[in-house]
């Protein structure tokens, strides 16, 4: 990398590479070069666990070399354009365009324009149909790939579900076809479409009804599946896990050890996509986790570890795990954190074992303000749980609590919104009622309210999102109900949530709008300094797309949904049953108490609690 340019941009450590733990291979022995891109800045991408897993899993193959790519910040992009420098990877600094594969992990909808920006900076046409044999095969994966349709035109294929076994298999197919002299991109994609967990959008055609809904979705060949079933790792104890991984030198968002404890979730909150698409629940053993933790520590020297999962207290052996880890962590000056703690499991014993206590405030997510709405969304916590949890915190001298809520949930009324203010008030009152409360400082409660975004593969996938006018009215209404100055109220930008909803539930026709946005230089939509809602509305207008069709329209229960060709294991029948229960205000049991028949068990695997 040219040093004059590096010295002229912000944070050159984003581009210089050479980090401890990066993998550099001799190109001579390599048959497949994979550029793996997190379509956001270095600091965000280097914090991502999924990328670490896939980087390590691909590099575990001796003839495959996977390298990292991130979106350069706008100052670097200017320099690259000015001097005609192509986007390169961090390890070899070779141009991305010369690779065999370019993979994108799609973690949130607002990164789509940045994906296109990366393609532009690499010197590649945006649309898959316009890219020849000289371009790498562009593949997408990650949570957004469960509805890949809005970006379908830009990708050659998608990896659906967990990729640590699927991606090396795909590269193997590529290498074999190349070695047999039987390779063309077309032949390869057709063969890949027959592998489990791969979706090649160009091999399926979509027709639309006059009202804009989907009329049919048809494979172009008889030998490729009509429904693409997601991949899962059968046994997490045997699967690859990156205990030896790259470490950034410059400050990133999450720069610590992350240990994944289990996948899936027993809860089934009705708004939560991760809770559905990550099923079935598969756990690692305490011994495996402990061995991995020690290995990670010895390899890295980090002094912080996160035990990660969708809801850590639901791990079957949580007590054994935290006992063992707390002793080890104290001995080695490691601070442990459990970021996904449910408030009904927050106890004094657990708090003593982990160091989340060291940080000033504690965070809980009741999600809704009244019991009625919490039942409707299947959150399964009650006010007593919250008060008990905050009292644990007050007992040890804590004074500040953060509460997360959502606005715009299905069936929400103004009473539910007012309930948020009342609940926050109760939390303040509980402080003064607690005889052990901190006498030096006054309490504070931060109420953070996001906007509900209906997501594919949730019981609320058919729901309409509130219009942003309605969301803004609700935000103002809540503001008027919060009068106590000890309560700090934050809320999300409703226009951002609107755009998320458009791309979360969009179909292939949105590719046109995205391409247009990219031409106008739009990118980094997840960054408030780059997000421009007015400009987005102009783009939709110019592209002839009504964004409300995707966000604020209730989808018909019998409608063909853009993501219907994906099979996540959980059935549509189950989602419909859960939706009905939501409207009836009936919560469901968690998977450990009683199976609700979601269907994910048909995917197999070493499951923890499903039949």
């Amino acid at each position, binding site marked *: 990398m040219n040093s004059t340019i590096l010295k002229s941009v912000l944070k050159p450590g984003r581009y*210089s590479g050479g980090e401890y733990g990066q993998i550099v291979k001799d190109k001579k022995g390599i048959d497949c070069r994979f550029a793996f891109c997190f379509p956001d800045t270095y600091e965000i991408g280097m914090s991502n666990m999924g990328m670490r897993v896939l980087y390590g899993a691909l590099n575990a193959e001796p003839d495959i070399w996977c390298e990292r790519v991130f979106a350069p910040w706008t100052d670097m992009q200017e320099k690259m354009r000015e001097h005609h420098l192509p986007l390169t990877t961090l390890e070899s600094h070779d141009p991305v365009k010369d690779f065999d594969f370019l993979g994108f992990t799609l973690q949130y909808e607002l990164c789509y324009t940045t994906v296109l920006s990366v393609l532009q900076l690499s010197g590649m046409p945006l649309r898959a149909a316009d890219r020849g044999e000289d371009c790498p095969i562009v593949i997408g994966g990650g949570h957004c790939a469960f509805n890949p349709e809005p970006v379908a035109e830009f990708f050659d294929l998608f990896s659906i579900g967990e990729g640590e076994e699927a991606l090396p298999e795909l590269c193997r197919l590529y290498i074999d076809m190349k070695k047999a002299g039987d390779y063309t991109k077309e032949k390869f994609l057709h063969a890949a479409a027959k592998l489990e967990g791969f979706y090649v959008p160009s091999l399926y055609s979509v027709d639309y009804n006059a009202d804009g809904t989907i009329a049919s979705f048809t494979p172009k060949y008889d030998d490729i599946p009509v429904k693409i079933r997601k991949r899962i790792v059968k046994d997490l104890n045997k699967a690859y896990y990156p205990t030896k991984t790259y470490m950034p*030198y*410059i400050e990133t968002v999450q720069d610590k050890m992350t240990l994944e404890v289990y996948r899936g979730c027993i809860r089934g909150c009705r708004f939560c996509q991760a809770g559905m698409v990550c099923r079935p629940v598969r756990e690692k053993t305490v011994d495996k986790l402990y061995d991995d933790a020690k290995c990670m520590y010895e390899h890295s*020297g980090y002094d912080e570890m996160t035990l990660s999962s969708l809801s850590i207290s639901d791990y079957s052996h949580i007590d054994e795990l935290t006992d063992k880890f707390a002793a080890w962590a104290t001995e080695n000056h490691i601070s442990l954190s459990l970021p996904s703690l449910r408030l009904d499991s927050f106890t004094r014993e657990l708090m003593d074992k982990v160091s989340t206590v060291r940080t000033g405030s504690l965070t809980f997510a009741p999600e809704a303000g009244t019991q009625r709405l919490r039942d409707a969304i299947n959150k399964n916590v009650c006010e007593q749980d919250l008060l008990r949890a905050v009292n644990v915190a007050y007992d040890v001298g804590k004074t500040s609590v953060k509460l997360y809520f959502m606005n715009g949930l299905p069936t929400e009324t103004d009473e539910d919104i007012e309930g948020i203010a009342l609940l926050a008030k109760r939390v303040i009152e509980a402080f003064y009622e607690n005889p052990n409360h901190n006498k030096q400082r006054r309490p504070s409660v931060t109420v953070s309210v996001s906007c509900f975004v209906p997501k594919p593969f949730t019981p609320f996938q058919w729901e309409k999102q509130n219009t942003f006018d309605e969301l803004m009215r609700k935000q103002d209404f809540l503001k008027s109900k919060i009068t106590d100055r000890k309560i700090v109220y934050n809320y999300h930008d409703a226009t951002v949530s609107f755009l998320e909803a458009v791309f979360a539930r969009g179909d292939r026709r949105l590719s046109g709008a995205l391409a247009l946005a990219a031409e106008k230089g739009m990118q980094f939509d997840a960054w408030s300094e780059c997000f421009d809602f007015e400009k987005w509305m102009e783009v939709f207008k110019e592209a002839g797309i009504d964004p409300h069709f995707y966000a604020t329209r209730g989808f018909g229960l019998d409608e063909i949904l853009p993501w219907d060709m994906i099979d996540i294991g959980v059935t549509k029948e189950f989602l419909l049953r859960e939706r009905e229960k939501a409207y009836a205000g009936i919560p469901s049991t968690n998977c450990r108490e009683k199976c609700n028949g979601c269907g994910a068990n048909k995917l197999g695997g070493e499951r923890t609690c499903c039949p």
Partner: protein
Amino acid sequence: MLPVRDKVPHVAVRIRFEKTGALQYISHLDLHRTFSRLLVRKGIPVWYSEGFTPHPRLVFATPLSVGAESLCEYMDVFVIGSAETVDKDVLRWKLTETDIDGLKVTDVYFPETKFSTITDSDYTIRIRTAGADAALAERCEAALRATPLVVCKRTKSGEKDVDIAPQIKAVAVTFDGECLVLRARLCADSMNFLNPEYLVKILKEKCAILSGDPTAEEYSILRTAVLCGEKDFR
């Protein structure tokens, strides 16, 4: 609050190291983190401060700006034990292979001096620029020897014109057939520290170097010595 007496005996160990290559782009704070983790990985019995948030205490000698390399950086770290029980040769051996590209430990010893005794630093700045020749080297040297030598410095309280001539102890510019080679001795005590980037900045302004295609022109800054008066710091 009264100072709390630390319970665990510990002793300062000085590490001399090189910081080159990609590592030149990481800041002082980044290096602090990187070094702490390296010491843990290498099994060095680092002493942790005994306050509310225990952490290793690392102290670096002089600042090195992002984008500058160095052959002579110094850092003190506290290790559990005493000068009698800690074997510096074992530490040196453990740190020989640092496993970090661009970071090379060149010495480990018990310090006998304070960082505050540092007065100057020597630098070699190599400049690959269009039109480089002996005549340009001469013009550059003359430009840097001018008095006063006023540059615009960015400080916490805004931009300020400062005469840096007193902070330049010695300077010479030669042409090695390919690049301009600037050698300078600059003030490095904490009150008068001069960032070598200012010399490049002056030459850009006054001698129009590095004004062409940045993909063909470049410069590198290398700190070659840290001094205490006329002698090498130790």
